[in-house]
């Protein structure tokens, strides 16, 4: 749920630097982690975070409150920035790939702190599926905010979420079966 005071804070941020910096403090960690989770690279995560807040600063006066948190807007800027960075070839995580190759999976897994089956299966999902799952379940954003970030309606968001979770479940089941087979043969 959006913070009821956030609207006032945004209005002030359109005139006062302090208010904008308050918003920065509120969201910088989440945007940094979001950027890091997609790039797996500290330098790139910093670049994406810096670019996101600089763009937010340049456009804050044009921002219109629509009952969705300011964070959703920042996530959308960050998402666009990530896409641009990916197009420039600055990172090769499966953000824009529909299916991951085995090598990519291996590399992604290496970048993750937890090498469990869930993360392995997640890494095999398409970028679109990863994005919707990450925004909804890892970033602690509401469905309304995720729909706002992805520029789609809530029914479409739920459909995409359901499909992504179904595919993840299938991958997970295959992964777990594969992991069990070696144990059974031992």
């Amino acid at each position, binding site marked *: 749920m959006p913070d009821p005071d956030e609207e006032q804070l945004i209005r002030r941020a359109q005139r006062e630097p302090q208010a904008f910096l308050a918003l920065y403090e509120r969201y910088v960690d989440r945007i940094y982690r979001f950027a890091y989770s997609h790039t797996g690279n500290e330098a790139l995560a*910093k670049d994406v975070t810096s670019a996101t*807040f*600089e763009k937010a600063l340049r456009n804050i006066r044009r921002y219109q409150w629509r009952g969705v948190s300011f964070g959703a807007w920042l996530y959308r800027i960050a998402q666009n920035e990530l896409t641009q960075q990916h197009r420039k070839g600055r990172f090769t995580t499966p953000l824009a790939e529909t299916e991951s190759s085995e090598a990519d999976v291996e590399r992604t897994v290496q970048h993750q702190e937890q090498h469990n089956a869930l993360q392995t299966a997640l890494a095999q999902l398409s970028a679109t599926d990863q994005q919707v799952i990450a925004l909804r379940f890892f970033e602690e954003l509401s469905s309304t905010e995720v729909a706002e970030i992805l520029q789609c309606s809530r029914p479409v968001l*739920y459909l995409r979420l359901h499909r992504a979770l179904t595919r993840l479940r299938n991958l997970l089941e295959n992964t777990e079966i594969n992991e069990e087979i070696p144990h059974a043969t031992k």
Partner: protein
Amino acid sequence: MPQSEIDRWAQRLEAGDQDDPTLTLAARLQAERPQLPSTPTEFRNALHEQLRTQYQQYQKEKPSMSKFTRRSMAVAGVLCAAVLLLIVWLLWKPQSVSAAEILARAANLTALQAYEGVIVRGNGQADAYTQWEEHVWFQAPDNLRIEDYSPLFTGSSAPPENLIARSTPTIQISPGHFYLQSLKVSNGVDAWSFDPRSNMALRQDPDEFDALYPSIVFPTYDLTTSPDKVVTSLQMLLDKTRADFRDVKLLGTETVAGRQAYKIEVTPNSDDVTELSAGTHIVLWIDQETYIQLGAEIRGIYDVLLTHSMFASIRVNQPTDASVFTFNPPGSVTVADARPKVNPTSVELSQAWQALAAKVPFKLFVPSEVPAYLKPKSPIAIQGVEQHYSSKNSAVALSILQLAWSDKNVRFLGKPILINGYKAYYWEQFNIHQLNLVRDGTLISMTVRADVTQDDLIKIASSLQEVSKTVTPVP
């Protein structure tokens, strides 16, 4: 998966339910979200400072547009867009012409080469209102045929024996079972009027064929004449409309004779011409495509229909067989040659006038001062007495019609002038000048189609002398 199932699934997801493998997985994802590094403090503080500096610079470099300015610009933008849309709409809208423009276009009709149609006409008042049909053919420049079907013969099982149609043996019967009452044919060389009841045919000068229309009536109200006369009368109506500030309204569109027509109402003021008075109004129907006048009606006070004229069918600009514009009277028909003698001697003219003066029950007058370039023809008696004067190209330049006149309530078109103690009315329009004068019970209507001035016409009228045995008309 159907949308309704997705909706139910979404509700359970938002409620935190885990009674479905995908919902269980969603809960697991939330619980096992990746542990990501926190934002490096140095970076965090540096970005904070950078944003503070940028914000201040941004405020200095780009002062924000005030809300009022933004709104003003937005309103201006919307207004500009609206004006553009309006212009586009006005350019593309086919029916955006005003009633006055429609009348003006109808009054400047030039593209009409030919038409053939049946006109339903009527006049009278209340239960005395009668209706009849006229079949009209026109082909440019001067071919005209008018067949008048009277209601007098309605119900007859056979046409009168003396009824004659055009040169073909077919008897013309309209769908309304009206039989031919009169026929007028003109082809520019010959002109005939035929009355089946009297079995008489009158041969006329084509130039004088249309001269019998009372000059105070607008042909636009009866339509049964050549289109140029309808157009001329429309021009007069339009001119009066402008001059008298009458109310002209476009009432909408209606179908007349299978064609889409503009319906225009013209409300005259109390100083209107003879046949109209305060409280009456005129309704005209003008073809949307060709601007031909398709109908007219005049209504009096309480909306009583006084006269109407409406095409029941019309074919435009289609060739007509030449036989339609010829008339060959059979041997049984009495033929009278009413063509005036061209270039009569002064003695012949004098005799003709004296003979007519003895014949008609009203006084006749003849001018003694007429410009030398106008050569007189013999006077003729058809409906009243007429005399025409021609200029060099033999076109009728001056026409003088004389009728018995006792209606003192009639008001003439134009401004009043006193000539020899008699009140005359003069008007001019599109090179047509007319002067109407009532003298000793005779209406003298003088029409000039030439570049003559009002003074010229008044001079001719001033020289009128009563025809008697002692008067010798000036050639």
